[in-house]
């Protein structure tokens, strides 16, 4: 099985109001595929429908229409099997505060029918550095320790797919790093991870592909491809002096797109900078230019995200 998550036209409409007279479209026609071992980032503003999507994909709520296969099981028909094969870290995960870390994990290991409960509990308590505090009530834990424990809880049954809903929200940098490092470790183990996040830097670092979502899936691809799709690859040639004629000269070189002159710089859109840069430098030097240095303009995922979300808001208005 290649696709661990596959949705086709998944839609969720909530009926709200006293007489349920108003329809609220939370997720509209979502079609996506997440491959085995892939880390997929699901990005979107607050209220975009990310949590509703996660809840649908984990069998917690029913879609209004559309279909999905999770770990090979049909959503709506094999929900118990889906729940058995996925782990979920909810947005505000609660623990049983009066119970110990060990007891919390043991309860969930039992509910997930883990074969060797003690082994699984001990493994995650040790792996996440909670062994020494295993008998302490969770209520006495720091936020970082709690987050480690909820990650352990989501993994206790060794799920094929892990859903992480805002895994680092509200954590201090150190705790966030611990969670990120752990996600990276899971990634190397080949687990499929579906992660919603607001942290675009985190998404860029961890995710193989991201989807930008606001009720609808606006776009999906790898962060690098998204940047390239939106902005292309743009290279800046810093010159000691700029002659206006050099704009046309550079434009005539095969593989170049638009060429702009900004102060003493030429900003050139290129399909393949590795291929074109030496040729452009040679041409400029031959024309008498002093090329001081060459650099590529890096657009962040944040720029892509903001552009997409704003564009979507404009369309909705």
């Amino acid at each position, binding site marked *: 099985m290649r696709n661990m998550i596959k949705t086709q036209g998944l839609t969720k409409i909530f009926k709200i109001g006293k007489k349920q007279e108003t329809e609220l479209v939370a997720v509209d026609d979502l079609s996506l595929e997440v491959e085995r071992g892939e880390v997929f980032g699901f990005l979107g503003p607050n209220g975009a429908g990310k949590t509703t999507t996660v809840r649908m994909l984990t069998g*917690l709520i029913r879609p209004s229409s559309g279909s999905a296969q999770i770990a090979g099981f049909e959503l709506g028909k094999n929900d118990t099997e889906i729940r058995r094969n996925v782990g979920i870290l909810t947005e505000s995960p609660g623990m049983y505060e009066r119970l110990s870390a060990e007891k919390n994990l043991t309860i969930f290991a*039992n*509910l997930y029918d883990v074969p060797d409960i003690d082994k699984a509990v001990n493994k995650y308590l040790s792996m996440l550095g909670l062994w020494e505090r295993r008998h302490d009530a969770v209520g006495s834990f720091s936020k970082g320790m709690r987050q480690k424990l909820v990650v352990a809880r989501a993994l206790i049954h060794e799920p094929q797919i892990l859903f992480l809903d805002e895994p680092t929200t509200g954590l201090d940098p150190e705790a966030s790093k611990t969670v990120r490092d752990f996600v990276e470790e899971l990634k190397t183990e080949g687990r499929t991870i579906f992660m919603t996040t607001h942290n675009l830097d985190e998404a860029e670092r961890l995710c193989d592909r991201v989807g930008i979502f606001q009720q609808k899936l606006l776009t999906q691809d790898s962060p690098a491809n998204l940047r390239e799709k939106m902005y292309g690859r743009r290279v800046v040639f810093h010159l000691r002096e700029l002659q206006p004629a050099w704009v046309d000269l550079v434009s005539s070189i095969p593989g170049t797109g638009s060429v702009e002159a900004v102060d003493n710089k030429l900003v050139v859109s290129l399909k393949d900078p590795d291929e074109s840069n030496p040729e452009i430098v040679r041409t400029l030097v031959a024309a008498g230019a002093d090329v001081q240095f060459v650099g590529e303009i890096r657009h962040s995922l944040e720029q892509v995200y903001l552009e997409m979300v704003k564009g979507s808001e404009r369309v909705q208005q």
Partner: protein
Amino acid sequence: MKHIRTIINKEWSEVFKNRWVISTMTMLPLLFTALPLVMLSMTGGSTMSAEISAESSGLPAGVVASCAGLSAVDCTQIYLLNQFMLIFMMMPLMIPTTIAAYSIVGEKTTRSLEPLLATPITTIELLAGKGLAAVIPGVLISYAAFGVFILGSLLLKLSPAVFSHIISPTWLLGVLVLGPILSVIATIFATYVSSRASDPRVAEQLSSMVILPLMLVMFAVLAGKLVINIWFMLIAIVFCAVVAFGMLHLGTVIFDRENILTKWK
């Protein structure tokens, strides 16, 4: 069964660390067992040894009519016992209500409900686990309290007529059979209220309303308008069993993961 046992174990581990629940579970049975014994011992020393008459006893006429051939003391004690037995039937209602009222709303306030619902546990397993975790202690404590009451009654050297009333089929059925059925009804009601409530205290207050029908019966007995006999008890058992079964069925229908997560906030 494993999932149900896990939920029971989890509930007990949590609930028995809650001081309020512990105090309710200890103080109520102590009070409800000691009070009847004290009352019986006080009335036992009475000089009313003559055969009962409506005028002399001051008891409701319906009660006096059921006391044919008994002394005034015996009739008074039986009259009191009828109230106390209802209290013993109330006990398995009150203790589970305290536990069950906290069961779902407690998970909601600590935000542990969603991870729990995300496990492969079925709705029936979850409800059964939460329900049994509430019913079992309530019933066991009630049985223990009733046992202590019987022992106390033996020590008080009650008359054979009064003692045989305590262990009559009517009251044995009431305490040992109807009590647990009422406990199931109270637990399902409290679990439902708990699912809809957003505050554990509100859930408990609303859930405690389940005791009102039994209070009405108690007042009717007190006023002599109702005499509880074996037929009344059998009909009550059948009726309450049907109600409990219906509520159980309804509970599994309305206790829906999606509703709880998206609407019951």
